[in-house]
């Protein structure tokens, strides 16, 4: 039974808004958790426990003057953050967050779009999202921006290879590129984190680099580059870049839960609640790492990506393939 189109539409609307809400409160959670880890309170003035802080931030960003440098090239400068935000939001659509239900005879799927090559789609949209950073930095007419763009570019391209190779083992075990199917198979067998622990580690590390989070936040190293590719952006245009970064982080956590931690599977059939809890745990790990580890130097970053992460991911994929052929 397929889903009627109006349910798909409603669901898409709902998920996009939930995702944006999640992004807004992720910024608050990050500041709160970081504050606690650094022995301070974090935001606590807007509303109780600072709960209105994201809304205050949004109002500030929207009302701020969106100036552009006089040398900026108009159309690419304006379109760049839109590309980044769009691809980030679109990528979440294939992540399954529930088993799917039948209510009053209407079928409701547990994901916005069930695509046969869902995993590839996430990577394809991720690689298109880079263009927002490149075009934005290039169009800003600023040395800091262009340097930040170059770093972003080199880093994302380098770690994308390891990221794609690290999921190969999961694809071999799950025998599909379709994310709901991979989750189903983990429900039948076991979460793939057990046979693919190395793959999970590589995926997590490469994922941190892909989302430019500390300790891999070289694209926006404040001491060297002011803010990297978005140096010359202000107001909500800057907000869109920030949104893209955080939503990429959410999508990556969702993908990690889907691929390695059996997605929405868990005791007592809680479905989406399990998905959210697992995703929150991964996001917490992201924030934890940011407060714990110092930033890498650029040559360390490149050496680690190409000489450690890539060989490990390759060996993991080859060994998994051999084992699957031998025992599968």
């Amino acid at each position, binding site marked *: 039974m397929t889903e009627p189109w109006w349910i798909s539409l409603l669901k898409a609307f709902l998920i996009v808004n939930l995702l944006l809400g999640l992004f807004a409160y992720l910024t608050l959670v990050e500041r709160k958790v970081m504050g606690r880890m650094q022995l301070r309170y974090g935001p606590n003035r807007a509303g109780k426990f600072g709960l209105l802080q994201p809304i205050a931030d949004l109002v500030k960003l929207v009302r701020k003057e969106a100036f552009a440098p006089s040398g900026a090239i108009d159309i*690419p400068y304006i379109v760049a953050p839109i590309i980044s935000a769009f691809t980030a939001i679109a990528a979440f659509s294939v992540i399954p967050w529930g088993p799917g239900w039948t209510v009053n005879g209407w079928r409701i799927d547990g994901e916005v779009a069930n695509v046969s090559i869902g995993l590839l789609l996430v990577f394809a949209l991720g*690689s*298109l999202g880079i*263009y927002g950073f490149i075009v934005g930095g290039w169009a800003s007419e600023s040395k800091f921006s262009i340097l930040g763009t170059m770093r972003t570019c080199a880093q994302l391209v380098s770690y994308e290879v390891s990221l794609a190779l690290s999921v190969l083992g999961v694809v071999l075990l799950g025998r599909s590129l379709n994310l709901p199917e991979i989750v189903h198979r983990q429900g039948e067998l076991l979460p793939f984190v057990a046979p693919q622990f190395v793959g999970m580690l590589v995926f997590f590390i490469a994922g941190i680099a892909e989302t430019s989070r500390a300790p891999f936040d070289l694209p926006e190293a404040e001491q060297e580059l002011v803010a990297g590719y978005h140096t010359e952006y202000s107001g909500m245009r800057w907000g869109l870049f920030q949104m893209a970064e955080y939503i990429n982080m959410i999508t990556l956590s969702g993908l990690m839960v889907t691929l390695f931690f059996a997605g929405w599977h868990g005791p007592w059939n809680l479905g989406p609640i399990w998905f959210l809890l697992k995703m929150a745990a991964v996001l917490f790990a992201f924030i934890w790492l940011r407060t714990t580890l110092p930033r890498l130097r650029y040559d360390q970053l490149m050496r680690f990506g190409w000489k450690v992460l890539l060989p490990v991911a390759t060996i993991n994929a080859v060994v998994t393939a051999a084992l699957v052929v031998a025992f599968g």
Partner: protein
Amino acid sequence: MLAISAGGGLVWAVWAIAAFACLASSVAVVSFANPFYSALALIGNLGSLAVMYLLVSAEFVAAAQVLVYAGAVMVMFLFVIAYVGPRREAPWAGGPSWQTLGAVLAAGALLVEIVVAIGLSAGGRLSRSEHVNATFGSPEWIGRLFLTDHLLAFEITSIVLLVAAVGGVILGSHTRRQDSGAAPQDAEPRRERDLEAVR
């Protein structure tokens, strides 16, 4: 499969938009004077081609096209152009010249050739829709074809890529040695010397 079951009108609309975008972006690639815009137009062209692949149930090829060409390869193009290319040039500068005329004639000849070739080989089959089975265009099916029917081409391609990778490494290491001599061993004392000088 998705596109075929979604109804004829929608398919036609998407096809028309993708085909127009494909043509417009390919014209833009060759007519823009600023290479940065040409590269952006090429990304658009690859993207609209991917949509066309989707319409003929080749989802895997579409995703691979976006991932490999529109994603990885074009990032490298833009990377280099953003480094060394001109920035302030307008996207459009240049009028008709003998090159344009030659290009238009060659493109027209190619179009006629393609239409004739397809028309001769397809016969009457173009006017009715073909039945497509469920495995068509799936990753499993393409993988099987690569390792059976097209094994030789597949392996030769991998050797070409390997040679390119080795060549890249040789070029890179060669220039580095020329530039800074025995840089790794020398770096530490030199930094100390610099510090001395500052003091």
